[in-house]
């Protein structure tokens, strides 16, 4: 498994498309916690469950004022179709060009497969990673680690 960026590291900035005509950068979200969920691909069954779970938990993440971002190498149009089909209410970032460029910076790119790891990062309001976790690619990592990490931010 990849060596993902550990807690204590400053989260590398990025600016990626969230819709065909809109980009989002990490610095725009300074001042509030950010949850980044790298996942291998839209449509694959496990990610579907993982994203569906996070979708249901959005109100819970919002209690921490946290922003949730899904990120994979799929293109914007693919993300748009996936978002629509699954009724997702959080942004999916397209790490599409250069492919996996952001995932590489986070140590969350699977070179051999050309897809992202199933890796989670919780970033505090100053832009520092406070928790990270890489799950086996076929295993849904769930949300308990994220919720705990968000809770720990308050301490």
């Amino acid at each position, binding site marked *: 498994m990849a060596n993902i960026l550990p807690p204590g590291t400053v989260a590398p900035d990025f600016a990626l498309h969230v819709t065909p005509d809109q980009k989002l950068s990490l610095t725009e979200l300074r001042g509030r916690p950010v949850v980044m969920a790298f996942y291998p691909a839209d449509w694959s069954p496990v990610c579907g469950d993982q994203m569906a*779970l996070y979708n*249901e938990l959005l109100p819970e993440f919002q209690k921490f004022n946290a922003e949730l971002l899904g990120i994979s190498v799929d293109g914007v149009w693919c993300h748009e179709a996936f978002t629509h089909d699954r009724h997702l209410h959080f942004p999916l970032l397209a790490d599409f060009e250069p492919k996996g460029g952001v995932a590489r910076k986070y140590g969350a790119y699977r070179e051999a497969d050309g897809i992202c790891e199933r890796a989670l990062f919780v970033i505090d309001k100053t832009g520092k990673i406070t928790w990270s976790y890489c799950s086996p690619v076929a295993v849904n990592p769930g949300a*308990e680690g994220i919720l705990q990490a968000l809770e720990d931010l308050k301490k």
Partner: protein
Amino acid sequence: MAELKIPISAKDHMQGNADAPVILVEYGDYECPHCGRAYPMIKRVQKHFGAKLAFVFRNFPLNQIHPNAEAAAETAEFAAENGRFWEMHDAIFENQESLGLEVFLLLTEKLKLSSAGLRQALESNKYTSRVKSDFIGGARSGVNGTPTFFINGNRFDGAPEFDELVAEIDGRM
């Protein structure tokens, strides 16, 4: 290993004795096909172990992909308040192909409960917070999808099949 964060209490829906050597908890979604398949399997597991096993059902509806899951869960909670949880739980799973308000009202009438009462409970979101609290408790315990089972508080990560579940429960007896 993921562990059940919300202890079993009187608020839970339980079949069997709380003092049973093994308590099996399911986090389920009434509209999830995998839960639908698990439903008769659980009945077999319960029969197999008899009084040595207690079974608890908690709600984990994935509403954005299962549009009837929340109302189904709330219908079962409505029945619970009238002491008929398990009959409704079973009836909903047995009608999983045709879930919707019409069926929920019909099943309510079949149990000789007030369909007007159900309608009002659904409209006023009377049981929404109860269902939500099951859901959040599940997410905090490592429920990633449905069905997820816990055996004496430890998440069961095997396949939701009779043989695997029985073997795991046997190991805890």
